[in-house]
């Protein structure tokens, strides 16, 4: 009577700060499915949560419980790349279970020998970094200081940014890694300040080191312009800070972050008391919703065939489905019409290795608000 989706979530450990929001977003998608007629023959879609603790060693047993004990149909997660890879190799791939990660950005995920089972709906770092570099150059910023969180996400993003920025004629005056969870980032900021940079690019997490750096950089008072990646773009960015200090701050995030799909999810999350701008919230919602669509499309709660169905429901062509439109999607699938899910995190078109290519939007803090400036050309 139940169709289970496994949530391989790094709820404890280093990213405990924002993992809960992602779990909630996934559960919101499940609620929507169940509220609008359920999955397949009106069955209940449920989630089974397992904690992978952002560590391959812990992810093994967690993923295995989902695959072998709970017999889930598909897995949403993991978040940290290490957990995703360990879960995939150890249990999901041999168990023939599809996984969609909403947050693992390491290139190694794409390199998995996965029988087309491992997907991710998060834009690889490379694209966002390049786009951000182009945007800054176009705006006439040619010298920046850069700091990134020292993990696959941060170093990938910073690497891509620096390469593109330098290639376009800019100079990265200082490139400084930071570790999450420290109390004090003044030495890091000081290094950047000392290089003479007045623009600070932060590739980190708003609710962890990145946010702390932003605060302390504001206190330092020697930067005119802040730039952040999607890890910094969250509701809390302005909630706990004086927007006047951040006036002009530029944030980049995978498109759309506006438009009908995003607005639809924004409305839904607001209704549920969640924050659509939370780190990877849109990706999480999309991942679970897509899994549900794929199960519906494959016609049975059988692991076989989900992977193929996933591409069919996610990729163009087909009738557009927006977040929350389960009833409509269910009818179309029943009628045999091809559908194409447009996610709040992007159009979500999976390529050969299961990655999405994405367009990047940018935002500017203006007059106490984060204003969406649309696609970076």
């Amino acid at each position, binding site marked *: 009577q139940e169709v289970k989706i496994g949530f391989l979530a790094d709820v404890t450990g280093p990213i*405990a*700060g*924002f*993992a*809960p929001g992602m779990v909630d977003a996934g559960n919101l998608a499940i609620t929507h499915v169940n509220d609008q007629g359920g999955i397949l023959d009106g069955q209940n879609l449920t989630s089974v949560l397992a904690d992978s603790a952002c560590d391959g060693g812990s992810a093994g047993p967690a993923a295995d419980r989902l695959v072998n004990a709970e017999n889930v149909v598909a897995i949403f997660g993991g978040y940290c790349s290490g957990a995703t890879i360990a879960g995939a190799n150890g249990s999901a791939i041999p168990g023939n279970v599809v996984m969609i990660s909403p947050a693992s950005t390491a290139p190694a995920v794409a390199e998995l020998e996965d029988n087309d089972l491992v997907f991710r709906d998060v834009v690889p770092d490379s694209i966002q970094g390049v786009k951000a570099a182009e945007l800054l150059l176009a705006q006439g910023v040619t010298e920046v200081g850069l700091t990134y969180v*020292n993990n696959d996400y941060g170093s990938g993003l910073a690497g891509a940014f620096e390469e593109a920025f330098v290639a376009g004629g800019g100079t990265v*005056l*200082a490139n*400084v*890694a*930071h*570790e999450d*969870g*420290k*109390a*004090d980032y*003044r*030495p*890091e900021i*000081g*290094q950047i*300040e*000392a*290089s*003479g940079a007045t623009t600070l690019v932060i590739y980190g997490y708003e*609710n*962890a080191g990145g*946010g*702390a750096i932003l*605060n*302390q950089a504001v*206190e*330092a*008072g*020697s930067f005119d312009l802040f730039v952040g990646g999607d890890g910094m773009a969250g509701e*809390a960015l302005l909630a*706990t800070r*004086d927007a006047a200090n951040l006036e002009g701050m530029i944030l980049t995030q995978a498109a759309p972050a506006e438009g009908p799909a995003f607005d639809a999810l924004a409305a839904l999350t607001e209704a549920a008391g969640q924050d659509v701008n939370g780190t990877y919230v849109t990706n999480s919602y999309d991942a679970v919703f897509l899994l549900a669509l794929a199960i519906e499309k494959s016609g049975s709660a059988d692991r076989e065939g989900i992977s193929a169905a996933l591409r069919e429901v996610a990729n163009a062509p087909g009738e557009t489905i927006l977040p929350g439109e389960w009833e409509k999607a269910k009818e179309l699938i029943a009628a045999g019409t091809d559908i194409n899910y447009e996610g709040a995190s992007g159009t979500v078109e999976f390529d050969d290795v299961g990655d999405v290519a994405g367009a990047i939007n940018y935002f500017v803090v203006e007059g106490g608000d984060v204003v969406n400036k649309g696609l970076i050309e």
Partner: protein
Amino acid sequence: MDELIFFINRVLISGTVLGSIYALGAIGVTLIFGILRFAHFAHGDMMTMGAFVALILASALAAMGIILPLPMGFVVLPAAMVITALLALGIDKGFYAPLRARGAKPVTLLIASIGVTLMIQGLIRLIFGSGTRQLYVGGEPKDIFRFDMEWLGGSRPISITEPQLIMFVVTAIIVVALHLFLTRSRLGKAMRAMADNAALAQVSGINTALVVRVTWVIAGSLACVAGTMLALDVALMPDLAFNIVLPIFAAAIVGGLGHAYGAIVGGFLIAFAETLAVFNWTAVLRPLNAVLPEGMALPANLALVPTEYKLTVAFVILVITLLVRPTGIFKGAST
């Protein structure tokens, strides 16, 4: 001039802030070690706990509409200290005292304190969630004081925030108060006696149970001060102080375990080592560019080590200190 101001901002002030935090934490660690002879690993989480206690109190006051010109987290500090001290006493009674009563080895207590760490972390996250919060309740902004240095020919200001100023004052007061307590008061001397020779202290009729309680009260309230100050300076999160418990221990050890003054020295030593190791000397040496021959300009980043290795520096200092002085600068105790 700008170079000097930069140095003041980036090294003196930053180092002092960090050093104060480390020192406040390390004093607690070192006191507990001196009296109870075990490394209290849960001390970091006690700091976090104290900060959350302050958060609850501050939020409650703010909800009642009481807003003062000082940060609310600071205003409620005395009450928060009392509550945290009580919690510390409870933790001792519940988890450590039974082990001591059964003559457990120090390492067993250390492992028990790891268990306590896990429990505190679990509970904090259960109650408050795992996100980041601000201890500035009621939306008051953090005051930043910028001292204009133009009269000295500097183009940048010396800047310091309100919580940092408060922290300097509070740390200084605590250090002096603790010194007076330990050297002048009867109980303070009893604490020193017990740290020196617990069996003889008992034989002298010193109520050792009382001394243990006083130790926890002091350690707990200091933890609360340190946690709250840290949270005011940065932000409040469940793993706030857990992440700095290693440097705090390093500070206590470098100073010599069981030595309150050693902990203070160790705290500042570690903090300044961290700060200076990743300090970009180019910022100070830039005027040299004028005299250096063409093509020999200073690199943009002239730091001793990359920031990835910042914590490493603290530990390298630690290891070297220990190799030269195996029980810390002040010749500390050892189990």
